């Protein structure tokens, strides 16, 4: 078992380790210890540490700090005359802080040199992409921010089903090169892609001020009304490795025209829900097309449960393998039909009779026909014993004898009446 003291020690050590590892963020580390000849500078990312006046004899060095706003716009943010072992600090980007320490001076015949130690805290070492001495007269390295502007172009009014062209262009309107630039495109709902003419979604790089056409494709609207063209997004980095994202503006298209649709409704009824076994039951399936185009290959499968036999039906009904179904090759708009069928339940019980409707139609622009499925089930048909059913439970002679007698009497009456019919 670990004792209480040992536990505390373990946690403490763990915290220490954590601190060391996160030292890159929180702790301070030495960036470099350059020796700068008077007039030379040391650049860390977009900051410039310049040694302007170095004098070994007076034991001082004048250090100036600039932030590089653009290639030719330096902004002095700090200045200090340092004695040996003096330090100067300045804010580095958001949370960082740089400490510059003058560790020594070297006198020479011409220009003296200053020995510096540069520490950075509150910033990750990994994020330092420039740390070098800039010779006197040289420009410091400038890393601008790329800014990719994406423009999507398309007609604002389109015809339903008619292809229209979308062009996506990207322009770097920032002041730095965009690297690892990749695009993602979404063409939007209610639109389907017809043809792709050009596609170059990266990865690529784009210098500041350059522009490039990345996508040209053709779309088709599949529904009328207002349709939103999807946006194109870009993900990219500046040369310093900072990540950027851009998105194109939303574009609303006005889709004109109407969609063709076959809208067939089905209703299914039976003449009675309580019937006697072995009697006939008539059912009716009514179909009506309220759409604006014909339904093709319309089919209604009448689903008879076991114990219910198909007897007959209208001409529209055909039976395949004992299963009745209605088949109508083309069922035009506003057409209406009632199809009747007759079944006979052979067993008592409770039944449902289903009717599954399926058809297709051409909406006027899609390549593949639209498929529709509907169902209309009559539930709870109760089949009871017929009055004569009990007869079947008795041996033949029990009812055959009276029947023969009744039949005999009937024949006798007919015979007698015939004798007197003149």
């Amino acid at each position: 078992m670990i004792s209480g003291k040992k536990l505390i020690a373990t946690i403490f050590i763990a915290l220490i380790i954590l601190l060391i590892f996160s030292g890159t963020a929180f702790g301070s580390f030495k960036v470099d210890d350059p020796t700068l000849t008077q007039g030379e500078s040391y650049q860390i990312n977009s900051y410039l540490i310049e040694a302007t006046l170095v004098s070994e004899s007076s034991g001082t060095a004048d250090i100036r700090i600039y932030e590089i706003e653009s290639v030719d716009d330096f902004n002095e943010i700090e200045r200090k005359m340092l004695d040996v072992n003096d330090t100067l600090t300045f804010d580095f980007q958001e949370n960082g802080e740089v400490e510059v320490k003058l560790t020594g001076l070297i006198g020479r015949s011409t220009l003296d040199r200053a020995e510096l130690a540069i520490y950075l805290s509150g910033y990750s070492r990994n994020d330092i992409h420039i740390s070098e001495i800039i010779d006197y007269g040289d420009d410091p390295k400038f890393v601008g921010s790329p800014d990719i502007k994406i423009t999507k172009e398309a007609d604002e009014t389109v015809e339903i089903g008619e292809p229209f062209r979308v062009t996506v262009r990207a322009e770097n309107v920032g002041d730095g090169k965009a690297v690892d630039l990749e695009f993602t495109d979404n063409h939007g709902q209610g639109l389907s892609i017809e043809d792709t003419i050009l596609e170059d979604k990266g990865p690529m790089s784009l210098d500041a001020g350059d522009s490039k056409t990345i996508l040209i494709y053709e779309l088709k609207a599949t529904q009328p009304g207002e349709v939103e063209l999807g946006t194109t997004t870009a993900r990219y980095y500046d040369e310093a490795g900072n990540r950027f994202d851009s998105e194109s503006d939303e574009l609303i298209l006005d889709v004109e025209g109407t969609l063709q649709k076959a809208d067939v409704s089905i209703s299914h009824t039976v003449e009675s829900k309580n019937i006697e076994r072995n009697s006939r039951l008539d059912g009716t399936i009514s179909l009506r097309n309220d759409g604006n185009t014909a339904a093709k290959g319309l089919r209604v499968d009448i689903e008879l449960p076991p114990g219910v036999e198909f007897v007959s039906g209208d001409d529209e009904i055909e039976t395949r393998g004992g299963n009745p179904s209605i088949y109508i090759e083309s069922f035009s708009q506003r057409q209406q039909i009632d199809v009747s069928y007759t079944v006979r339940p052979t067993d008592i019980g409770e039944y449902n009779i289903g009717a599954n409707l399926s058809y297709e139609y051409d909406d006027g622009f899609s390549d593949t026909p639209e498929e529709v499925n509907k169902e209309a089930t009559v539930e709870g048909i109760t089949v009871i014993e017929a009055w004569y059913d009990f007869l079947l439970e008795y041996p033949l002679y029990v009812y055959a004898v009276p029947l023969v007698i009744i039949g005999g009497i009937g024949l006798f009456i007919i015979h007698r009446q015939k004798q007197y019919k003149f």
Partner: protein
Amino acid sequence: MLNVLVIGNGQCGNRILDAINREAFGTGSKYAKIFGKQKFKSNVETIAVNTAINDLKEMQFTKAKDRIHIPHLHGVGANRNLGKKVFESNKEHIMRNIEKRGRFDIAFVLTSASGGTGSSFSPLIIKELKDRYDFPVYSVVVLPFREEGTLYLQNSAFSLREIRESGSDGIILADNQFLKQMGGDVKTAYDGINTMIAKRMLFLLDSLDSEMMMVTDLGDFKTVMSGGAGLATIGFYQADQEVPVINVIQRALSSQGLLFSTNVYEEASRAMIIIKGDRKYLDIDEISQEVEKLSSSIGHVFKGIVVRDGEYPQVLVVLTLESASELERLYSAAVEAINIEREKKSRVESQKDMDKAFSQIDGYEPSY
């Protein structure tokens, strides 16, 4: 068992025949012909003959095979000469139908005397039967209502004579005029008269074919019918309550029971009397007293008694007549009628003369 043939000719004959078939079922029910059985003691064959198909169609209790239609539009319209011609051309058809029914012991021919079909067919059928077979043939002849007109009277006079001359073994008379007392409309009167005749016929047939003791038989009937002037009638009474048998006999012989108006004690020549009923009602003394009274004034009377348990007394009397004052009256009325018809005819003739007179001015124009 006797084999009896009953033929009904013309509307009147057909309807009486149908009444006989109906009464034979016993019940008055409409469904009797379907579920019932005719209670003929003998083997009775009935045949209805008519020129009018509607008369045949109206029959209800006579089998279709027993109805013979002689096609001649709608009857012969009381025209006996036409009737005779129609019979002659259809004679074989009718006789073949009779022939195929086998042998008979006795035949009755029912007809009205006054119509066209029945009155002309009947004498001819009787003659044919007599020529071809040797069983006795009796006719039941219905006399018309006197107000039915001169034509019917004439027809009756001639047809009765023809029936007598045809060889008929006896004519049983029934007189619509006499039986008119039934009252009601003509149809009801006819139905009533037909039922009366039918009941008497059935009773008679029953008593001819009886195997019991103390009864009359066909031989007795033949003997009775051969007496007198070939004319006969029937008297009948059926008590519907306990009545002394003497009263029943008297009523059968009165105008209540007879089919033809006659004074039995004066005009009858032979008689046959059949008395039926429960033994307790049949007082032999009373019966003998009444039968003796009858035989003392007319001669021999055949007597038969049929005992039927639980039945009220019924009496049937067959009487042959040696004279019939009523028939004489009918004949003199007929002579009058013939004269009237002749006058009418000559009036028509003189009308023809008038036509001649009118025709004299044919082609002329009046000039003024």
